[in-house]
């Protein structure tokens, strides 16, 4: 960037910031612990960044406040053959710059989602080709049946083709190419209810209500100022002092403090993220254990013993301050495919655990190391320590190796050859559909088909694999649920994982505002209002 250009942009930002402060109306100031990675809608497939951008950009479909898929930029869609879906696009939609939305923008955005710097290639690749039928009709062609494509595409945000090309942003912003396509990092032009006024990464992003949004939304907010605040104590202080109206996350140990203050409340609810322990069930000898020559976790009795040794209610009471939801399933109630009949956790029964261990030949227990992140999930390290002390009661000596998330993920994930014997992980299916979990966590690892990529312990059951494929293409809801239930029963009987709980969401909100806490922890401005 030349000096001259920099002078122009910085002074422009300053004048906008100064100008914005003069405006009155209903302004919301909020903070999160970090910033959106960039404003590029295809740059990072991560909850906060996508949730942040969903206020500015929209997809063909959208998620409503209860995470149900609703029409977005498409008014309707119809499966016309096993390999094609026809979308009717919404007429009269304008981008923030005034351009009209049409089929070309969808095709452009799809191609862009497959470009080098995009992190949305998996969703983009669900589609083989898009044919423009007319300006407001497209036919999406797929390799095989893709019933999940419409819901997954809630996260493929549609960009304006003309605007993107005019600003050299035909491809997703790419870390290797200097400034060649950096425009979308700090500029946005979507169809959403809010537009970006200014942005300084890590410092401040200013939104204002778009005047030409196609939809009427519940919110009465006109301006939104976002500032990332890293330190939890500073965040809480800024909320109490009234400098911020909404901050998240609030550490669970600060709830009491917020409750004792007037004018602010801690809003908590169940997140759709399931926290669970995984076990290496594929190696013939565990990497981190004192048992040599065999893998105790391959023995169903040992896995059962572990399941019955965990006291989920105690974890809920002592570590999660009563705010977690103990679970028996690998998916949360908000996820499509959830069936409450299968959600009963394994019974806490240490005597049974000991008996099972004795039967399996481990009467004296064994040693194992559990990998654990310490800054990724709510109280993650404490959960591992609690699990370790519960295991100790039945004779299993569990050592906790807790590390920051970058170290932890660098160790246990596929690129490091799943270097773990046991681990704690949390998962929210981005699509809010069970298939994502069946494919990523419960299918056998398969490098070709990319199945089981996050099945770190390689739980592998042929029938579950078959069911996963059937669930992926079945369009009849009744049959589909039957396949899901069968898979869930096998997973439960085989103790594929040790599900712990859905962790709580924790937002601090001023009493002057009402918000909708969505279970995927995305902050949707459409449902925020100033009430006082």
């Amino acid at each position, binding site marked *: 960037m030349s000096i001259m250009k920099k002078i122009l942009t*910085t002074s422009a930002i300053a004048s906008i910031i100064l100008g914005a402060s003069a405006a009155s109306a209903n302004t919301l100031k909020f903070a999160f612990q970090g910033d959106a990675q960039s404003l590029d809608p295809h740059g990072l497939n991560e909850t906060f960044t996508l949730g942040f951008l969903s206020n500015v950009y929209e997809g063909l479909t959208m998620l409503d406040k209860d995470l149900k898929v609703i029409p977005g930029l498409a008014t309707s869609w119809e499966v016309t053959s096993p390999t094609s879906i026809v979308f009717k696009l919404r007429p009269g939609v304008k981008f923030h710059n005034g351009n009209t939305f049409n089929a070309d923008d969808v095709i452009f955005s799809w191609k862009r989602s497959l470009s080098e710097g995009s992190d949305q290639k998996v969703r983009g690749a669900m589609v083989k080709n898009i044919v423009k039928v007319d300006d407001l009709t497209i036919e999406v062609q797929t390799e095989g049946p893709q019933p999940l494509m419409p819901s997954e595409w809630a996260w493929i945000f549609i960009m304006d083709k003309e605007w993107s090309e005019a600003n050299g942003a035909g491809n997703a912003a790419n870390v290797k190419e*200097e400034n060649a396509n*950096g425009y979308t990092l700090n500029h946005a032009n979507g169809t959403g209810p809010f537009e970006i006024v200014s942005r300084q990464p890590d410092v401040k992003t200013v939104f204002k209500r778009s005047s030409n949004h196609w939809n009427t939304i519940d919110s009465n907010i006109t301006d939104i100022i976002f500032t990332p605040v890293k330190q939890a104590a500073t965040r809480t202080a800024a909320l109490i*002092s009234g400098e911020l109206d909404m901050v998240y996350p609030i550490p669970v140990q600060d709830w009491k403090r917020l409750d004792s203050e007037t004018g602010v409340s801690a809003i908590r609810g169940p997140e759709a993220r399931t926290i669970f322990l995984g076990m290496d069930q594929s190696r013939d000898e565990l990497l981190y254990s004192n048992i040599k020559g065999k893998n105790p976790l391959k023995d169903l009795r040992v896995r059962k013993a572990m399941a019955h040794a965990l006291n989920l209610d105690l974890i809920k009471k002592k570590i999660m301050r009563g705010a977690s939801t103990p679970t028996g399933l690998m998916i949360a109630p908000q996820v499509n495919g959830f069936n409450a009949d299968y959600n009963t956790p394994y019974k806490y029964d240490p005597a049974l655990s000991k008996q099972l261990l004795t039967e399996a030949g481990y009467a004296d227990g064994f040693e194992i190391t559990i990998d654990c992140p310490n800054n990724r999930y709510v109280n993650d390290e404490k959960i591992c320590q609690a699990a370790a002390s519960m295991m100790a009661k039945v004779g299993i000596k569990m050592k906790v190796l807790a590390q920051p998330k970058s170290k932890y993920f660098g160790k246990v*994930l596929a690129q490091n050859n799943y270097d773990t014997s046991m681990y704690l992980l949390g998962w929210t299916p981005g699509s809010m559909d069970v298939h994502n979990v069946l494919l990523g966590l419960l299918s056998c690892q398969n490098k070709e088909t990319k199945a089981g990529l996050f099945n770190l312990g390689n739980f592998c059951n042929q029938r579950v694999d078959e069911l996963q494929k059937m669930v992926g293409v079945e369009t009849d809801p009744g049959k589909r649920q039957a396949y899901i239930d069968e898979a869930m029963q096998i997973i439960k009987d085989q103790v594929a994982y040790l599900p712990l709980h859905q962790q709580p969401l924790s937002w601090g909100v001023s009493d002057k505002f009402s918000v909708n806490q969505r279970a995927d922890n995305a902050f949707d401005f459409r449902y925020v209002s100033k009430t006082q």
Partner: protein
Amino acid sequence: MFSFLVKRLLQSIVVLIAVALIAFSLFKFVGDPINNMVGQDTTLDEREALRERLGLNDPFHIQFYHFISNAAVGDFGISYRHKVPVSDLIAERAPATLELSIISALLSVIIGIPMGVYTAIHRSGFISRSFMGLSLVGISLPTFLIGILFIFLFGVILRWLPTFGRGEVVAIGWWTTGLLTWSGIKSLILPSITLALFQMTLIMRLVRTEMLEVLCTDYIKFARARGLKENAVNFGHALKNTLIPVITIIGLQLGLVMAFAIITETVFQWPGMGMLFIQSIEEVDVPVMAAYLMMISLIFVGINLLVDILYAYVDPRLTIDGGAKHG
């Protein structure tokens, strides 16, 4: 003088390369940058392709060579997280840190020196004793805790001052300043005092000790014997001679203030270089980490070099060819 300079410069370059080497070899312990650059659903092949493109699969010495040869011409690459050139990022954040550090340094001098003089002259007065007591707090309490205490006292309980951020800033060319708006000045108060506290107490104690020493010397006794006014003796004669070592320390401490700013910036969400560095560690943004460390070491080396040269000028007794031992 010329050979002295050349020698010093060469030494400085060796130090910089050593810092780069140590910093660079530490980065592999921070974690895998790829995980923070992609979402959970990204496939293994894509991750591997990204790794290859970033040159993370190259052997260590190749990566280091690339880094050094680019850094030598001022190119620190592109931030993994922000996807913009690191030098732009640092230029954008530098004003916030510099403003904070300079104000803090000024505060510590303006408050620290008079306090030191006062406590030296009135050695056993009540006020002196309270100053000394307070200075112990300033030296022993960690910056993090002081910052949080300030926030809760002045931000939450009294609600006088903002708890975080820089307030409104005004751009003058590429520089942004918070000194021209009321909210910017209010935002600067807590972080600058937090950051200044340690240096302030250090300077105060240093001035006091030096001053006490000077006050016992013969020429002060002589000045008093000449019947000079107490103020003239204290400030005209004693203080002047006290300040020589103090100035040296202040110069060296300026670098430390900037380095210490990391913690203060994190507590107050101050959008400076320290904050950038901390976030980069968390996200394993190697190019930013490397550039920041290089910059800080460059500042330290630069200040040291400057002090050495000044010494050689000020004190002709120091032989220029190798006899000088200081800094």
